[in-house]
């Protein structure tokens, strides 16, 4: 079924346009999209890194967790949107390379989970800004969730990076 979707997508005008490698400027679109993708990853990883390190008690700042999250959530959501747009562009250009790749599938699964966790952070803080600092039990829960989030984010970046290598057989890189 996925194979059928890939074959359909490969024939759409958008995909054919983007995968036309004879014109240099058209060909450059995807590498440049990847650069924007990488820059957004950088901003995203730093933001979620700071947020989760704070929950783990490894980052100290004078602001409350709610205030820190207030600064960081716009960065997080904006970079996720940019990643989605550039990612879609890249997938439309080479549908099989992404959609039939185990690294990509793992990445999307982990992403779905971590987005839910991030939404949970936001929602809990909106209901109660002290939610994560309220009691020792809450702080412990925060540490667990932060550890899980960091592992998920690292997993997402790693599986994304390895997409290019997971179709390879043996031999030198």
């Amino acid at each position, binding site marked *: 079924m996925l194979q059928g979707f890939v074959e359909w997508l490969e024939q759409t005008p958008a995909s054919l346009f983007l995968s036309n490698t004879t014109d240099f400027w058209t060909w450059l679109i995807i590498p440049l999209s*990847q650069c924007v993708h990488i820059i957004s990853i950088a901003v995203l990883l730093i933001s979620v890194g700071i947020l989760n390190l704070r929950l783990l008690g490894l980052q100290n700042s004078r602001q409350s967790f709610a205030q820190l999250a207030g600064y960081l959530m716009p960065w997080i959501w904006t970079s996720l949107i940019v990643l989605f747009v550039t990612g879609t562009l890249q997938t439309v250009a080479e549908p099989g390379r992404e959609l039939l790749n185990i690294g990509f599938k793992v990445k999307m699964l982990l992403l779905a989970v971590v987005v839910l966790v991030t939404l949970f952070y936001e929602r809990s803080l909106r209901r109660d800004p002290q939610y994560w600092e309220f009691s020792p039990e809450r702080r412990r829960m925060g540490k667990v969730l932060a550890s899980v989030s960091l592992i998920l984010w*690292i997993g997402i970046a790693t599986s994304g990076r390895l997409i290019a290598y997971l179709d390879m057989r043996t031999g030198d890189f």
Partner: protein
Amino acid sequence: MLDWIANTDYATWVRQSWGWAFSLTLHAFGNAIVVGLIIIITLRLLGFFKTIPYTSLNRLLPVIWVGLVIQVLSGTTLWVSKPARYLADGMFQFKLFFVIAASIVTIYFHQILNRETPRWQSAGLAAVQGNTRVWVVVTALLWASVLVAGRLTAYLGQLYHA
């Protein structure tokens, strides 16, 4: 000498086992640290997210240097797998040039921030002005150039067969 480097046990291991994928992944995270922090600092200094105190940016700068060390170590590991081909590649030469230029400018940038952030904070400045603004943008563009040149080494130049 480059052949000798390429034939060391380390280089051979990188080329033929998980060393390459691991170093490349580390290089991606190091890149997130360096470029990510530079972008966040740059955007704050240009007036976005005004509620972040300038003085809190000072704590991020040492982390950039840690990121750079990660990049040099992982980058060298990647390089030893094909040293001569990398050095002959125009896009890679471009990237190294930008790494050196960006690092020098970032040292200067670090000193400016250490010195000026308390003053900017107490003056309630919305964004940095004048020459400082130019340096801030230049620093960000230099690191962005490193990133773009690095990405394009996979596509242009001598590294891979067309």
